């Protein structure tokens, strides 16, 4: 079949052709970019924290009437209270291990700073300084969180000190994540010295863990796993405890926490938010990301449906308009399949023009988003998939009216309208 008659016929329906092509172009541009954004959200949500997330929960509690850190002896009193709590939690049945910790991955409460290979360096330039999040915990931290040690050694009980929450002294030793260690010391970090927050005191790296995410969920991949572990219990009027339970015993242990802690000391705040499983922490951290992805997904779905409906509607109109001509063609010997193919090829031509314009629009929109929002360049694969999807939708939408056209009997040609 030659294209000539199709093109000649299309010239008579300029407005309709332009409208369908435009609709396909706009849809392609929007859906490509929206799906790209959705994909990035999903990717972020699926980022591993490095923790063994099942059978893990976090207790956040606050003492009432506890001494302040500035009061003489206050820090020691606070530490004694924390040790009492830890002992009580470690004695609970079905508890595997417990560690005090100032924050957790995805908890959105963080202590951040700069880590450098040279003293006094805080300028984030070159490879010798980078941002990091500090986790303060004790020798139980790795088994409790389920974080795997890949080099050096873990903390032992003798390493662990305690200090006031606002006492920003530098530690003697630290454990880094592999992401951080590789950035600072490409040829092995264990035994090397790092300097924290522009300080001059060398801090020895004693171990490297495979992966541990920072508390804020929104960070890019370049900072997401930059964590530093410091062997210290932080003392303030509040404390957090990470608890690992035996498999399947999470709910029971979580229920047992409140009575156990009230028994140690009733003058404290423990409410609904105080005992949260890691699953809850993860859900809360990513709720906005997932919500936005769902919202945009729904909008995209509606968009595709509307475009398909538009093609069905306009092609139906054309079929009705050319009823007689189709009859004439059929009378002159065209088979049903020829009529079907005619409309399919016609749609392919229009949709083809649409997607060419659409690809340009999609790239343009992506450029605009990149300059106004933190977006990256859209991969060719997304655009290519979008092109194929639009062409397929066009063909699917045109099929019903085209089949109706192919069923026009040849006798229509002889009938007066």
């Amino acid at each position, binding site marked *: 079949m030659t294209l000539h008659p199709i093109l000649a016929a299309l010239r008579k329906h300029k407005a309709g052709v332009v409208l369908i092509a*435009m609709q396909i172009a706009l849809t392609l541009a929007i859906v490509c970019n929206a799906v790209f954004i959705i994909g990035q959200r999903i990717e972020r949500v699926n980022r591993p924290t490095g923790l063994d997330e099942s059978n893990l929960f976090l207790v956040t509690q606050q003492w*009432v*009437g506890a001494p302040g850190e500035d009061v003489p002896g206050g820090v020691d009193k606070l530490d004694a209270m924390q040790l009492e709590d830890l002992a009580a939690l470690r004695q609970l049945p079905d508890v595997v291990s417990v560690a005090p910790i100032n924050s957790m991955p995805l908890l959105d409460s963080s202590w951040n700073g700069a880590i450098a290979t040279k003293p006094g360096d805080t300028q984030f330039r070159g490879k010798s300084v980078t941002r990091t999040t500090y986790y303060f915990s004790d020798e139980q931290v790795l088994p409790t969180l389920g974080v795997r040690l890949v080099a050096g050694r873990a903390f032992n009980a003798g390493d662990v000190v305690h200090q006031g929450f*606002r006492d920003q002294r530098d530690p003697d030793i630290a454990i880094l994540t592999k992401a951080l260690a590789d950035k600072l010391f490409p040829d092995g970090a264990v035994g090397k010295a790092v300097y924290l927050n522009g300080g001059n005191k060398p801090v020895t790296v004693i171990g490297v863990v495979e992966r541990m995410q920072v508390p804020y969920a929104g960070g890019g991949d370049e900072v997401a796993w930059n964590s530093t572990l410091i062997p210290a219990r932080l003392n303030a009027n509040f404390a957090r405890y990470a608890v690992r339970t035996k498999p399947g015993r999470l709910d029971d242990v979580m229920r047992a926490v409140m009575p156990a802690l009230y028994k140690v000391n009733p003058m404290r705040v423990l409410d609904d938010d105080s005992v949260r499983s890691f699953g809850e922490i993860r859900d809360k951290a990513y709720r906005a990301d997932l919500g*936005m992805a769902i*919202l945009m997904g729904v*909008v*995209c779905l509606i968009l595709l449906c509307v475009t398909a409906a538009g093609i069905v509607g306009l092609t*139906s109109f054309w079929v009705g308009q050319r009823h007689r001509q189709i009859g004439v063609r059929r009378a002159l010997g065209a088979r049903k399949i020829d009529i079907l193919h005619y409309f399919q090829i016609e749609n392919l031509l229009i949709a083809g023009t649409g997607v060419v314009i659409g690809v340009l629009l999609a790239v343009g929109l992506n450029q605009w988003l990149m300059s106004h929002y*933190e977006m990256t360049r859209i991969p060719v694969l997304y655009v290519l998939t979008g092109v194929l999807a639009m062409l397929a939708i066009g063909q699917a939408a045109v099929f019903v009216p085209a089949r109706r056209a192919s069923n026009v009997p040849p006798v229509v040609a002889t009938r007066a309208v």
Partner: protein
Amino acid sequence: MFAYYLELALRSLRRSPGLTALMVLAIGFGVAASMTTYSVFRAVSGDPIPWKSAQLFVPQIDNWGPKDRDTDGEPPSAMSYLDATTLMRDHRAKRQSAMYQISPSVVPTQAGKHPLNVTGHAVYSEFFPMLDVPFLYGNGWSAQDDAQRAAVAVISSKLNEKLFGNVDSVGRTVNIEGRDYRVVGVLDHWNPQPRFYDVTNTGGFSENVEDVFLPFERAISVGLPNNGNTNCNATPKESGFVGLQHSECVWIAYMAELDDAAAVSAYRQYLDAYAKNQQKAGRFGWAPNNRLRNLPDYLEQQQVVPRDTKVSLLVALCLLLVCLVNTVGLLLAKFLRRSGEIGVRRALGAPRKAIYLQFLTEAGMVGAAGGVLGLLLTGVGVASVGLVLPKSISDLARLDLSLLVITLLVAVSATLLAGLYPTFRASRVQPAWQLKSN
């Protein structure tokens, strides 16, 4: 005549139910999707205090210098203790308040009840009149209470209900962080979103209602530590909360009320003079780099509106655009199908204007039907936003009268706009040609 056109339109729409349904569905879904995302956008980008936001200003002082500035050259978004308290002491604005977020415990007086945790702010007395904070009982405290570091507190109606039941508790005692405070005021449901008076410490949106407000200097003197963000460009020399107060770390929010342009420029000069003085004294090794933005500008600069909502609003508007293009195509098909009818009407003497009126009426009807469907779907959409978005944001998205009116208006006017070109084409139909070909 209009009634006749309505009847004609109705008859025409009934003649091709499939095409009509397609148009109504497209408009309905398009409008509903854009209105639902718009309701979220409106909720997060709304002015929290529209009657006064132009008079509220947030001063920023650069106490860190060029070394610790971000690439945009902005000074820190919060203040150090030294700067905030000096500005309070100088008292150059009509009203002003330094504030910091606190999260103390409250011990109920009833026996057997466990202590609870509340959030709130330590503020100065002028905070309440400056922000037009509504009171259910009593009032804020006085400037004298500020100066005397009085043990007074303003509590939320929620905390009032929890501690005292629904009664006027002014004059009664509440135990906050182990110390007794006299209640001087109970707030009347006040939970502005975004939490504009302290964006740096709340990130803008917060699910928690603020339960207690204490005098700033009282909170400092009893060592009630801050619970918000603390940013430091260097490790504080001393430890503890006192060390933080002596450091250049920033953790205090500040707001000032300035009534007219003269007051604003005077305050700006005052800030610059202050920074220059600090430079002379050797504390700042750089020229003044202050900012004084009014509230809307400050919220914009702090990017309080989540970026995602802007992008999704954009996507939804594009959806509306595609729906419009779609409607243009379908209306075109629908109108031109009736070329014969138009030809007859024109031949019988109907002017082009009559054709315009007839077909725009029809387009308007499609728009109205799409609008009603869109309204229902927007209702569904707004209700289900809560299922997917965080509570702090979805709670703000509401279907109110203005959203209803906007939805209908958008639907009808968009469809009329979409109907313009097809109507134009219909009015160009040549009567002679149509009559001949039939």
